[in-house]
């Protein structure tokens, strides 16, 4: 009986506390974000820690070897080749995506508003096709014996090119397909940024006698710096972690010359049955991207506080 009295007395107090808590915007925001937090914890944080755990096990996953897998990788020439190739692949692909995106965004920006939507839609097509499908089409275009490219080259008397069989051409091909796939993302981001640059700035620059190039250098680029930094960072992460394009086109060959972290990790871990070493290779993307993210975001923050 005494317990019952205590319970009824405490109920309004609990409700009051809950109401007070609900009044805080941050609590509501947290509760609304909770499903997403749970999802990220289950699908991102748990696998990340699990792969860290796997990377510390021996090949048969029975023994804890600490950093043994990492030191083993440091001694392998192939590992350093994969590091070099991943950097070449990601940096060159992102550079060309940004450059092409920037140039084409200017062209599209200058198209009269009436026809612009049509062009925007068409230019986005490579980005909206699932990359596994479009890469397969590229694979056929590059086919060593029957490719459309080689057919044209042979007709022109230039001789066939071993697009995926010769190391330098194979590297070129995987970068080309990545640029083709990713450039529309830069295009659309830069187009949005261009539209937000106030027209008065260009008018003022014109009055000061600025030519076309000076307008880009002193007006457009400074106004787009943040969006350029963010898109470069985002694309760098995605390109570094790329798997499908390399896997479908070359599977890392010839002679391992196109392997990137993800494809090599897959080959070691899933195909080769060495899951800890595969996990270890995939974890190397994290510090490299972490350093890049730190510098890019620091620059953005610095500019933000200066403004």
């Amino acid at each position, binding site marked *: 009986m005494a317990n019952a009295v205590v319970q009824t007395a405490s109920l309004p107090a609990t409700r009051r506390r809950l109401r007070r808590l609900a009044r805080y915007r941050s609590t509501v925001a947290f509760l609304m974000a909770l499903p997403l937090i749970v999802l990220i914890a289950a699908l991102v944080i748990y696998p990340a820690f699990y792969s860290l755990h796997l990377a510390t096990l021996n090949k048969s996953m029975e023994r804890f070897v600490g950093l043994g897998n990492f030191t083993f990788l440091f001694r392998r020439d192939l590992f350093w080749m994969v590091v070099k190739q991943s950097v070449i692949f990601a940096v060159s692909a992102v550079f060309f995506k940004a450059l092409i995106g920037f140039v084409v965004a200017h062209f599209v920006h200058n198209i009269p508003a009436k026809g612009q939507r049509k062009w925007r839609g068409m230019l986005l097509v490579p980005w909206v096709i699932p990359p596994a499908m479009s890469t397969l089409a590229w694979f056929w275009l590059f086919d*060593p*014996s029957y490719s459309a490219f080689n057919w044209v080259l042979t007709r022109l008397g230039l001789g066939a090119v*071993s697009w995926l069989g010769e190391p330098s051409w*194979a590297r070129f091909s995987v970068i080309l397909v990545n640029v083709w796939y990713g450039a529309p993302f830069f295009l659309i981001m830069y187009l949005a940024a261009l539209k937000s640059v106030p027209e008065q700035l260009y008018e003022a620059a014109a009055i000061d006698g600025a030519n076309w190039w000076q307008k880009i250098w002193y007006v457009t680029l400074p106004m787009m710096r943040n969006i350029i930094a963010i898109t470069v960072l985002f694309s760098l992460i995605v390109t570094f972690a790329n798997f499908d394009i390399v896997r479908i086109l070359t599977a890392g*060959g*010839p*002679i391992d010359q196109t392997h990137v972290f993800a494809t090599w990790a897959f080959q070691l871990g899933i*195909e080769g049955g060495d899951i800890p070493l595969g996990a270890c290779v995939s974890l190397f993307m994290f510090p490299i991207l972490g350093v890049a993210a730190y510098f890019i975001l620091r620059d953005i923050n610095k500019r933000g506080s200066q403004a």
Partner: protein
Amino acid sequence: MGRVPFTRRRFLTTTAAASAATLGAPYIRTARAAGKLSIGFWDHWVPGANDTLTAICRDWAKQEKVDLTIDYLTSQGNKIQMTATAESQAQAGHDLLQFLAWYPLSLAKTLEPVDDVMAGLLKQYGKVSPAIDYLCQSQGHWIGVPAVTGTQVKVPCGRIDLLKSQCGIDVQAMYPADKPPTKEADNWTWDNFVVAAEKAHKAGNPFGLGLGQTTDSVDWVGSLFASFGAQLADAKGNITVKSDAVKRVLEYSQRLVKALPPDVFAWDDASNNRFLISGQGSLIFNPPSAWAVAKRDNPKVAEQLWTFEMPKGSQGRYAPFLPFLWGVWKFSKNKPAAKSLLTHLLQRGNVEKLVNASGGYDIPSFESMRDFKIWQEVSPPKGTVYHYPPRADQVTWMACAPAPTNIAQQMYVQAIMTKMIAKCTQGGDSIDKTIGWAASELEGYMRT
């Protein structure tokens, strides 16, 4: 109403009556009396082959009162490999799974020994291919049985007309339909093979031998190395790559590569088929899938195709063998049913049904089962695949054997042998440098 005390005597009477009632009740055997069984089979590329397998399993399930579920898993995009790895990690999934060659050994700790199944089958049908002994046994136990579906050898499939006119080789005279190889087949050696390849290249219809990193390339190169006695690592795991035999096979490869199309380093498992079917090539190493597709897409080429034995080297004639295997997970809740099904599937009558359903593509691993009529019957031309199943002096060989499987699997997956050839030909490295590189790679594979 007064309560009747529950005495010791009453307890005994009641339990005895209950036991008698239970034992005396009529036993009703339902359609699912022997429990559930979930299977993951490889999705066969031959239309209708899956149906035959399903029918055999359903008949067994009906007889054994097992509730059966079958999933067909493709090897496209490595789906079947990833399923095996994931189920082994999660300790959950199918009861019985079909594996690609290396997987039972790398997942041996999670597989149920099937010694009892294999003992019975070996007694019934005699020995299996040496490659099956190598791939299915771990620490003295059988951890898998040879699957019928998908198991293949990749022997020469050549153009009768082009080999005769361009290379002076009469394949039908060497390997006549329905008859054992003639004396002329003794001249079918790797030395004569390279001479023929050079002639075919000169005539504009080169041999199409892939040197990429996929199984077709790795398998034939594995047989080439074995024919020369070139081992990269021995059965004890010692690195033996620095040998005269390895040097000889690389020197041979340098000559052979000059007679191949320049893009063979980028070939996948479909490239050689296309090369032959299109009419460009005069010989490839492949199961009869290329012939089967040619029959549909380019019948004139199909009429000229003949499948026969591998060339012979100083150490023998080795057929590139790529088996599929069936295994039962330790976590399976119905191991007796799974083992019973495995025994049923490998009965001669069922194996023949499966081989027939695949049009002769599947190769039984029991050597006593390589006399099915299907290989005599399929045409055109009649007898085209009579010499497809390895017989006589041809050894079915798993590339990278006899190295311990933890090393051999890495050698196979990393395609170290095709890379060695690529390095000392396309890559421009010397043979010594290539061997040094391979030795360093092999040291890396020794990781335990």
